[in-house]
């Protein structure tokens, strides 16, 4: 930064701050604002400020509504109103006047009107509609300044629905002779693209024209659109790579006019924008990347001017080089360049250098070694932000050998930290590292205890969840398992003996659960002692009632023997009259179970969590119960989100106090699992150890999962390695080279010269921090080097693609019961207790699961396409779905065969049976659906059974889950006597659901004059919309990481011959039309899309006779729905 400029600018504040309001002002009006500002500056209290502003607002209000106020005065009033709002005092009365000013003012007045509107109103404000006409008028004005203003406001905010009204005018401006108009028109289109991308789909070629505009400003403006579009779909714009490279070349070479320079650097922000675009285009694409290498090298070389802005460009350049397909020469230069950053004495550059380093070590951890001295210095930097950034960097290079040191550094930072956001973030990272790389049990438990204490109740709920899950699932060695649990018990007992009142609630819940489950492992520990410690928690004032629930549950598990029972009884007495129903229920459970040892052993078996549980997440065993309930008049189940939506729509009364007594967490799981679960799990408080996996956490949980796909997609190695090597490395512990590398002596870290004492300490720290980053890192993929001694190896549930079955995996005797399974198990058990204790008459509930096959068979309602006929028949039987009085069942036999009326174009395609839907005296309605490659067509047949022609038939279809669009002719038809009218509709999925339904109304006028209508509904399974999605393994990897909604479950594979995985996938492929991307060993990846273009990915892994299926999609609910169908498909086979 040049000092000269800095100096000249010190004169600015007096100009800007308004405090020294000196000299003449051009307009008397601005002095009124000046007076106000000065008045406020002189005030001492907030109260005085409020009084002054209210007075000011009152005066503005009076003046704006006076008819004598001129536009010039109005402008001045608006500026004052803007100022008041800026200070936080609403001036809503002036909004309408701002619009009026934009409409009626001229020049600057008009501009201020527009400005006020853009400051006052948000995008969805209804008053904005009043602006449309003004914009329309100004866009057609002959005054360029007015056109300019209108375009400026449009590119800031515009009501989405009104875009079509002005779009042609804006498009027209793209060819305007003035560059500023063209530029602003492009920016307006960019805004449209942001708020309504489909509205501007047809003008993509005009964007290209803008990109090639002879004016650099217009071209620059078009880059905003391209950055956005390329980020969303890089494949669609690969052909433009060369163009962007050429533009960047010209900019770098200084071909732009001088006034684009900033401190003699040519258009720096333009360069940055282009580099971002190139990074998206070159990612995972060698040929595109090759086009860029030259210019990237040139950009690195050009950076000799020592100015902040060149470093800003360099940073972007380095990021780009490390994002695109690697070229070693270029990487080397970029790495050297990072050195200049981190070694800089300027703190801002150091910060950016650390940020860049954090980004690149994910690709190449060795780079951290080069800068270890700097990194260690930064760790002790007085500026917290530098420290924080350094921790971020260390987090990326953590491995099994340096984990203890790095975690210690992070905890040290956490203890001194006061900011909640940082705490939440760092605590999550520590937990992740601890779980992945813990060197021993003691360390792990202690670290997690610190995490729980420091993280308090703000941390992400999935941290305690996965901790408990890890404890309960266990890992490779049974003995290790026992030791870990024992250590946890010991450590928690001593914590409770201390001052448990100081511990956060979440931690207490964890402690309760662990003691409840595992305190028996410590033989010499008396159950009564544990009970007393737990009871002490109940008496502590600060304990929340949620925690008390956990404690009571734990006591129920523990209580044993005479003393135990008496402690329990005491507690029960206190809480069985509690006002909190959840607590009361827990107390009841405790009371009953503490007296009946056998019952307790049955409902709360020890180590229940580690037994493999086959959970039928569709809860089909409840189908009988459900249909009975429905028959008895119960309302059909609605998923949580649907109820919420309806509530929101109803907006009648606040329903909150009457909400279900379940915590959100268990609720969300219920949502994800099955449509019927909620009816069982209601009444449970969230004290089961496994709360929602998904709840609140925004980052995909990938712990314990092999890093086959990193942040940047499928982890292709930075250094060329042969295919076979790649596979070998992905195998968990198979690579002997890796082993050797990791075990290698720390001498791999560059040796430093002998130095004085503090330096030596640093060296020590360095060798402990950077151990394990040495030679073996060439072998590890771009992600973290996988530690050879990873302790808590979860039974992998993620997308692990290994060519061989890992030894330790086959060794593990316990099959991985997933989180959800555990929860379900616990919940079901709990619900059994509930029904037994609270309502003895409902004793059949526990039986239900045993009746599974029978119930399942009895109420198999519908599932695949082939069932559609039966399906709709059963729907007809169910009167609630057919509003119009259906013809008696016997009549159906007489119905015409409609298949002859099926449009000819569908003759070769697979269609469902034509099922009768509804009829009355004159009209029979039937329908079927036809599966086309890219669409699903619903064909509705209307048979006029009367003797008179029906002139106008109007068919209306609607659906919550589907997008219905009419194919071909208009839906109004005529049906001659004794003939059939056919309508076609194309259906696509709007909101995934296990079954989707279209409701329709046929209305028509009889010649006699009475209007008639027939209502019907047509239900079809989601499977009809599934189409294969052909992707490569790499694309799959990239997509996998991008998708945020997922679900996991274990299914029973199909065993026909030698290859159960292959057989199972073939069945799924056949029945659900999934595309099998690749099968490697015991794992397979599968992809499909749901019409239109909603992708869903599946990863399955065969292990210990079960198939762990993991589904992911960007669309909410889709994974759950698909899981349901997979399960059905396999069950039926």
């Amino acid at each position, binding site marked *: 930064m040049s000092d000269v400029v800095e100096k000249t600018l010190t004169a*600015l504040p007096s100009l800007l701050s308004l405090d020294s309001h000196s000299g003449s002002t051009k307009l008397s009006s601005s002095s009124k604002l000046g007076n106000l500002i000065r008045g406020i500056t002189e005030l001492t209290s907030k109260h005085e400020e409020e009084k002054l502003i209210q007075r000011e607002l009152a005066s503005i209000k009076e003046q704006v509504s006076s008819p004598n106020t001129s536009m010039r005065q109005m402008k001045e009033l608006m500026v004052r109103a803007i100022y008041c*709002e800026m200070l*936080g005092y609403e001036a809503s009365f002036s909004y309408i006047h701002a619009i009026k000013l934009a409409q009626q003012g001229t020049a600057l007045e008009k501009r201020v009107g527009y400005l006020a509107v853009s400051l006052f109103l948000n995008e969805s404000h209804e008053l904005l509609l009043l602006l449309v006409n003004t914009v329309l008028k100004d866009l057609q004005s002959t005054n360029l*300044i007015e056109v300019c203003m209108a375009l400026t406001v449009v*590119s800031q905010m515009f009501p989405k629905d009104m875009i079509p009204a002005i779009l042609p005018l804006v498009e027209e401006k793209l060819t305007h002779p003035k560059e*500023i108009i063209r530029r602003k028109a492009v920016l307006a289109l960019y805004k449209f693209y942001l708020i309504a991308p489909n509205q501007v789909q047809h003008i993509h070629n005009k964007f290209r024209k803008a990109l090639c505009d002879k004016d650099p400003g217009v071209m620059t403006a078009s880059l905003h659109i391209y950055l956005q579009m390329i980020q969303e779909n890089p494949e669609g714009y690969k052909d433009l790579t060369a163009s962007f490279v050429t533009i960047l070349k010209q900019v770098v070479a200084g071909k732009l006019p001088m006034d*684009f320079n900033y401190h003699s650097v040519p258009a720096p*922000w333009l360069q940055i924008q282009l580099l971002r675009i190139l990074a998206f285009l070159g990612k995972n694409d060698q040929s595109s990347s090759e086009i860029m290498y030259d210019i990237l090298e040139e950009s690195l070389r050009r950076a000799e001017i020592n100015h*902040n802005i060149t470093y800003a460009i360099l940073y972007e350049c380095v990021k780009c080089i490390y994002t695109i397909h690697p070229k070693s020469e270029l990487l080397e230069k970029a790495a050297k360049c990072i050195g200049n950053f981190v070694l800089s004495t300027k703190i*801002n550059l150091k910060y950016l250098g650390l940020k860049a380093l954090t980004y690149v070590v994910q690709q190449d951890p060795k780079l951290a070694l080069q800068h270890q001295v700097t990194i260690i210095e930064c760790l002790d930097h007085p500026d917290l932000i530098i420290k924080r950034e350094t921790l971020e960097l260390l987090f990326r290079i953590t491995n099994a050998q340096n984990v203890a040191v790095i975690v210690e550094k992070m905890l040290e930072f956490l203890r001194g930290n006061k900011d909640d956001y940082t705490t939440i973030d760092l605590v999550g990272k520590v937990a992740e590292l601890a779980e992945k790389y813990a060197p021993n049990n003691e360390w792990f438990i202690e670290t997690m205890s610190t995490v729980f204490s420091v993280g308090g109740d703000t941390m992400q709920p999935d941290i305690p969840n996965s901790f408990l899950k890890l404890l309960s699932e266990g890992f490779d060695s049974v003995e290790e398992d026992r030791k870990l649990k024992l250590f946890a018990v010991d450590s928690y007992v001593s914590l409770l003996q201390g001052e448990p009142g100081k511990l956060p609630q979440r931690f207490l819940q964890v402690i309760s659960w662990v003691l409840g489950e595992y305190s028996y492992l410590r033989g010499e520990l008396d159950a009564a002692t544990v009970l007393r410690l737990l009871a002490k928690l109940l008496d502590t004032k600060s304990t929340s009632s949620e925690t008390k629930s956990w404690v009571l549950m734990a006591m129920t598990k523990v209580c044993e023997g005479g003393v135990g029972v008496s402690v329990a009884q005491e507690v029960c007495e206190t809480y069985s009259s509690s006002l909190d129903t959840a607590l009361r229920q827990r107390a009841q459970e405790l009371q009953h179970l503490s007296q009946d040892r056998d019952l307790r052993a049955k409902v709360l078996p020890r180590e229940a969590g580690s037994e493999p549980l086959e959970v039928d997440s569709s809860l089909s065993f409840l189908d009988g119960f459900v249909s009975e309930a429905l028959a008895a008049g119960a309302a059909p189940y609605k998923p949580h989100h649907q109820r919420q939506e309806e509530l929101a729509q109803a907006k009648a009364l606040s329903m909150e106090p009457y909400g279900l007594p379940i915590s959100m967490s268990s609720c969300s799981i219920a949502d994800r699992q099955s449509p019927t679960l909620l009816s069982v799990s209601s009444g449970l408080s969230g004290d089961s150890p496994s709360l929602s996996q998904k709840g609140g956490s925004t980052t995909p949980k990938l712990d314990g999962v092999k890093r086959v796909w990193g942040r940047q997609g499928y982890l292709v190695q930075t250094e060329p390695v042969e295919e076979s090597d790649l596979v070998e490395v992905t195998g968990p512990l198979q690579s002997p080279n890796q082993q050797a590398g990791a075990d290698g002596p720390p001498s791999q870290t560059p040796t430093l010269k002998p130095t004085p004492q503090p330096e030596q300490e640093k060296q020590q720290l360095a060798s402990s921090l950077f151990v394990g980053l040495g030679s073996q890192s060439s072998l590890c993929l771009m992600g973290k080097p996988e530690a050879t001694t990873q302790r808590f190896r979860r039974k992998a549930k993620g997308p692990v693609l290994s060519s061989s079955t890992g030894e330790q995996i086959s060794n593990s005797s316990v099959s991985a019961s997933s989180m959800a399974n555990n929860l379900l198990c616990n919940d079901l058990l709990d619900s059994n207790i509930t029904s037994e204790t609270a309502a003895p008459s409902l004793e059949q509930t526990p039986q239900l699961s045993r009746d599974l096959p029978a119930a399942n068979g009895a109420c198999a309602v519908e599932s695949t396409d082939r069932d559609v006929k039966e399906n709709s028949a059963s729907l007809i039987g169910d009167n609630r779905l057919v509003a119009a009085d259906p013809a008696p069942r016997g009549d159906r036999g007489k119905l015409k065969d409609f298949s002859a009326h099926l449009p000819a174009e569908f003759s070769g395609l697979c269609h469902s049976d034509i099922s009768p839907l509804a009829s009355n005296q004159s009209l029979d309605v039937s329908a079927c659906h036809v599966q086309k490659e890219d669409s699903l067509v619903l064909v509705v047949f209307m048979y006029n059974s009367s003797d008179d022609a029906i002139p106008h038939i109007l068919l209306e279809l609607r659906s919550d889950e589907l997008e219905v669009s009419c194919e071909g002719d208009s839906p109004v038809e005529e049906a001659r006597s004794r003939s059939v009218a056919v309508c076609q509709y194309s259906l696509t999925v709007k909101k995934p659901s296990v079954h989707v339904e279209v409701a329709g109304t046929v209305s028509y006028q009889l010649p006699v004059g009475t209007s008639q209508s027939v209502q019907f509904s047509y239900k079809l399974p989601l499977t009809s919309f599934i189409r294969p999605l052909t992707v490569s393994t790499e694309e799959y990897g990239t997509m996998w990481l991008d998708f945020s909604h997922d679900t996991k479950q274990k299914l029973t594979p199909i065993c026909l011959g030698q290859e159960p995985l292959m057989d199972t996938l073939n069945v799924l492929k056949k029945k659900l039309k999934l595309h099998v991307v690749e099968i490697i060993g015991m794992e397979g990846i599968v992809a499909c899309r749901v019409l239109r273009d909603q992708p869903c990915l599946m990863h399955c892994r065969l292990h210990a006779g079960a198939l762990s299926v993991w589904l992911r999609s960007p669309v909410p609910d889709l994974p759950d729905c698909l899981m349901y169908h997979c399960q059905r498909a396999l069950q039926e086979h």
Partner: protein
Amino acid sequence: MIRFMLMVNRQGQTRLSRYYQPVELSRRAQLEADVVRCCLSRRKDQCSFVDYKDFKLVYRQYAALYVVVGVTDNENELSVYELLHNFVEVLDKYFSRIMFNLDRVHIILDEMIQNGHVVETNKSRVLAPLTALDKMADG
């Protein structure tokens, strides 16, 4: 992307605010006070970028005046830091003749940043519409 831009004086009074992501009016005062406290407490030799909740603040001080911008984590902080300087240079170029006023600074800012993105940095082009307006008023 840029979330908001503030100009505040050393007393913590807001001189200008522009939000590029909706923030309720009632919550702005608190946010601005927090942001100012964050920046005012820092020394000159400290980093010009600060963590604030889930985003970053980039600030520059010109004597008694602070210009503060809230940016998302994926933004290039240094480029934003320089953008602030460019903005101040533009103000300097323009206001050497006229007294500072709120509406004009907003008009200039609107030319430079829209929807949280940098749309123009060429000084003469940034000022073109405003100078044209001034000419209209004069003429």
